[in-house]
Each structure stands twice: as C-alpha cells, then as structure tokens.
C-alpha cells in the first residue's frame, strides 16, 4: 500500500504587497517524520507554516489527511495539527495550567467549559514533558525554555499527532536549546510527527528524519539530512563556509570562522 502524506502542499504561491514570497512550493509530510525546514531569513519558511495552518491564504493546493484545506475550519485543523509558535508575551498572565488547558478548547462544544477530564489530560501532558512542578506558575514569569515546554505540553493536550513549530529554539539559552531538541527527538521516537523551521543546519542534522531547504521562495533540496546538508549547500544558501564532521557517531555541521569576511 502506498503511504499517504498527512500534509501535502502542491505548487503553492504567495505574495505580499507585490513581493513574491513563495513561488511554487511542493512539500509532503508523512506520519512519524521529523522534518526540518532550513533557509535564510525571508526565504518563506514561516509563511509556508502559516499557509498550512490557514492563518493566511495563498494560491495552490494544501491538503491535510487527503482533504483540501478549504474544507477545514480552524477547529478541524486544530484537531489534526498543533502549532507551537515562538512564544510571545500576552499582557494577561495566565497560569501554566490554564495555558495548557487552552489546548483543549477545540475539543469542546460551543458553550462547554473544560471538564475534569480536560484538566486531567492537561496535567498528563505536563507530566509527559516533565514540568508538572510549573503547573501553578504564571506563564509570563517563566524562562524562554520553560515557555516552549509549556507550549509543547499544550500541543500534546490537543491530542493530535502532528506538531508544527516555528523556530522552536529561538531566544533560548544554549542548554535549553539542546534540551528542547532532545525532547523533540524523544517525542519523535514515540511516533509524533514534527514540521519545524530552524536556522541551524547543525540542529537539523541532530534531530530530523528529513531536511527541506528553501531559498528565494522555492524548495531547493528535500531529502535525508546527510544528503542535503553539505558544504556546498551551506555555501550556496548562507554564503559561508562550513565543515561537515563526524562526532560521537553523529554528523555535525561546523561553520568556518574567517577573519576577513565581506560585509554582511
């Protein structure tokens, strides 16, 4: 039997104020994959994610579980795909538990309040991420890393299989970046599917089953991490030199620091 993609994107175009952001993007996401989207600033990674989540509208075909995106309401999408945004502060300081319970709203009837079951699911999600001790803390007072963990727990509470993350490690300190990557890798091995954008080819090598590179609004490579992330690709896309080395049986991407660099 042929494997069917959970998300498929065909010939997707998007322009913003006469500026062509995406010009014919194709992408497929299969169950159990961890796909890293790489590319320089402005290449259209975040735009692609927003299009898949129907946060903005473009031209082309997007389907979730074989059904065109047009036929999905936001409520339907939320019961297939969870979005983990780059955290931003809301002026209203909810507790961690309240933040996670918000992941349950798409499951509720219009007038229903979250039930004891919803709170239980939320608590379990916090346990799974290992942050149940933060439950009563105010979300706004957490560190960037803890906030990302809470948003991941919220995604788990949504009880979906597919997680879409927009630059999950942005703004995190070094330790939290690595810990978050480990967590994503762990959840991936449990069968969760990830589509995440990243600025770090090295992170893509560490935690992905597939890497998609975008540049200038199109996908330029799509394949296994060891095939896609090469010296040549780094030079073409980012205009710097890098070495791909083996370390502790992992491929790593190490940028080469040149003292005389042309102006950025």
């Amino acid at each position, binding site marked *: 039997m042929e494997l069917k993609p959970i998300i498929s994107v065909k010939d997707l175009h998007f322009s913003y104020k006469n500026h062509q952001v995406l010009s014919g993007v194709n992408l497929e996401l299969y169950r159990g994959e961890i796909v890293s989207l790489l590319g320089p600033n402005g290449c259209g990674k975040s735009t692609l994610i*927003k299009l898949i*989540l*129907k*946060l903005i509208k473009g031209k082309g075909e997007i389907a979730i579980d074989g059904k065109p995106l047009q036929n999905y*309401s*936001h*409520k*339907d*999408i*939320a*019961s297939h795909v*969870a*979005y983990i*945004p780059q955290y*931003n*502060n*809301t*002026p*209203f*300081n*909810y*507790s961690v538990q*309240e933040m996670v319970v*918000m*992941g349950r*709203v*798409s499951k*509720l009837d219009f*007038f229903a*309040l*979250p*039930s*004891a079951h919803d*709170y239980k699911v939320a608590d379990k999600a916090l346990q799974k991420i290992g942050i149940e001790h933060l439950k009563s803390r105010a979300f*706004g007072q957490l560190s960037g890393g803890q906030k990302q963990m809470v948003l991941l727990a919220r995604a788990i509470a*949504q009880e979906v299989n597919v997680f879409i993350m927009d630059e999950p490690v942005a703004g995190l300190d070094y330790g939290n970046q690595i810990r978050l990557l480990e967590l994503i890798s762990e959840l991936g091995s449990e069968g969760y599917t990830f589509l995440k954008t990243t600025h770090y080819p090295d992170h893509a090598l560490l935690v992905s089953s597939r890497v998609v590179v975008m540049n200038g609004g199109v996908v330029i490579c799509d394949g296994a991490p060891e095939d896609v992330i090469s010296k040549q690709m780094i030079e073409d896309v980012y205009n710097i030199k890098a070495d791909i080395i083996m370390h502790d049986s992992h491929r790593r991407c190490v940028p080469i620091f040149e003292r005389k660099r042309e102006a950025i």
Partner: protein
Amino acid sequence: MRYKKEAKYLLLATLTLAIVALLSLLWGQYQIDMSTFVEYLNYKLFSKGEIDSQTFTLIDNIILEIRLPRVLLAILLGAALSTSGAVFQAMFVNPLVSPGILGVLAGASFGAACGMLLSDSWLIVQVLAFAFGFVAVGFAVLIGSMVTNSRSTVMLVLGGVISAALFTSLLSIIKYVADPYSTLPAIVYWLMGSLSMAQLNEVAFVAIPILLSITGMIFMSKYFDLMSLGDEEAKALGVNVKLIRIVAIILATLASSLSVVMAGIIGWVGLIIPHIVRMAVGPSHRLLIPLSAIVGGAFLLLADAISRLALSVEIPIGILTSLIGIPIFIIVLKNARAAWN
C-alpha cells in the same frame, strides 16, 4: 469539584453585592432601620405582622418608587460596563482599553442625543446609541490600525481618544442646534450621569438586552482566553476568530451603549473593575467575566450611595466614578506595567 475556587469567589462577591444593595435600600435622606424594614417585608410579602398603614405606605413608596429602581439600575449598569471592559480588553489584547477609552460611550451619547432630538421614541434612542457606539469603536480600530499593521497597544488607545473626541464634538453640534428651553437641558442633565431618574418599568425595559448581552459574554468566556493570546494562536487552537470577535464586540458595545442611554457617561468603571478582579483572581475569563459583572455592580452601587449621601446635594455619578477610578487606575498602572511591553 472542578470549579470550587470559582464558586467560592462568585459566592463571596454576590454576598457583598447583596449587603451593599440592602444598605442602599435602607440608607438615604429618610433612614429606614432594619427592624422596620423586616416588618415591612413581612407585611408586604406575607401579609403578616403589625405595621401602621402610614409607615407602610411611606416605606413602600420610598423603596419601590425611589430606591429599588435605582439600586437595580446601578447594579445593572456597573455589571454592563465592567463586563464590556473586560471583553474589549481581551478582544483587542490590550489591557488599556475600555468602553470609555475606545469611544463607545461618546459615540453612544451622540447617538442617544440624536435620538432625543429626532424622536420621542425610547427605542429609537437606544438603537441610535448602539449604532453610534458601534461606529465609534470601529473608527477607533480603523485609526489604530492605519499607522501600523501590527497590533499596537498605544495606537489603539490613541485611536479611541480621537474617536471619542470626534463624537464629543458632534455631540456639541447637537447641543448647539437643540431647543434651549426643552431638549438642551434634557440632554445636558442626562449626560452628567445620574441614576436618580430611574423608574422600574424603564429599568426593566433596558435590563433585558443588557442581561442578554452579559449572559452571552459569560457563555463565550473560554474563547476570550484564547483570543487574548493574539489572532494567530487563537486560530491555530481552533477558534473562529472573526465570528467570536464580531459577536463579542457587538455584545460589549450593546451593553455599554445602553448604560449611556440610562445614565449618561459613566467613565472608568469599565477600565478599573476588570483590572481589580484580575489582580485578585487571575486573568482566566471563565471567572473574570462573571466576577467583573458582580464586582462592577457592587462598585457602581457603592459609588451611587456615596453620590447620594456624601453631600446634601447629589453628586453626578460620572464625576464620582472618575474621582474614585483615577487613583485606583494609577495603582494598577504602576503594578502591571511590566506585563504590557
């Protein structure tokens, strides 16, 4: 039980409201003592006990004609303004907005004055108040979004200031053309804001739409949590953002516009009550919305009691809520500014 904490706070607030309401019924230029009131109630409700008929008629008049309508109206309007304030703050992800700041109250007062000028119909006054309240908030949002695309706390507040200023000037035109011997005094007196003209049948008439919109806002409260995270996150969590926003804004505008029709512009209540409640019980709208309604009702009732009792003449309630609201808001600003960046 899941919502123990919520039930506790709601019960406590309702109890406070009941006590303030009882005291408001008893206190005034003619003091009614507790035992007389109990005798009166006993006779009125169960036709039992001894009360001389002169005292009964006097108390019956004071309670039913003067104090009860006023008490009910104060609770109703306090609840309307506070819930609207909380809902506007969530809808615009902006803790600095309120029906007053968004221009709704100014727009509604212009609409209501138009209604008074054009027709004698109470319904037309209400409909125009709501319509222009809605136009005013729309105008505020339009100006707020003209300069920057992104959501800006300050720009929306400025948009509201401009919108309020516009409708205040338009109102001045109405005053200018109104008949100086009949319509003008009526408009001016009404605008100063007072609950003293309340009559039971009028209160009942306005109570229905206000209570309906407050109930609607309470039922939608779980969506306000998600909307206050911003549009994208709310959509991704499964909220029909457009629908919820338009319905919520209509309900909040309706409730606050009708408060203007009944008692003129009562500022600050819609801004400070949600803040005070949030500081006490947290930002979750499941509790914030109903609790704001009760606390707001109690607050306006208390303010009205002060306006009646403090001096030998009555102070317009709008002036009093500003005098109480401003210092409270300064404290709130000082405590909460960190979260607003």
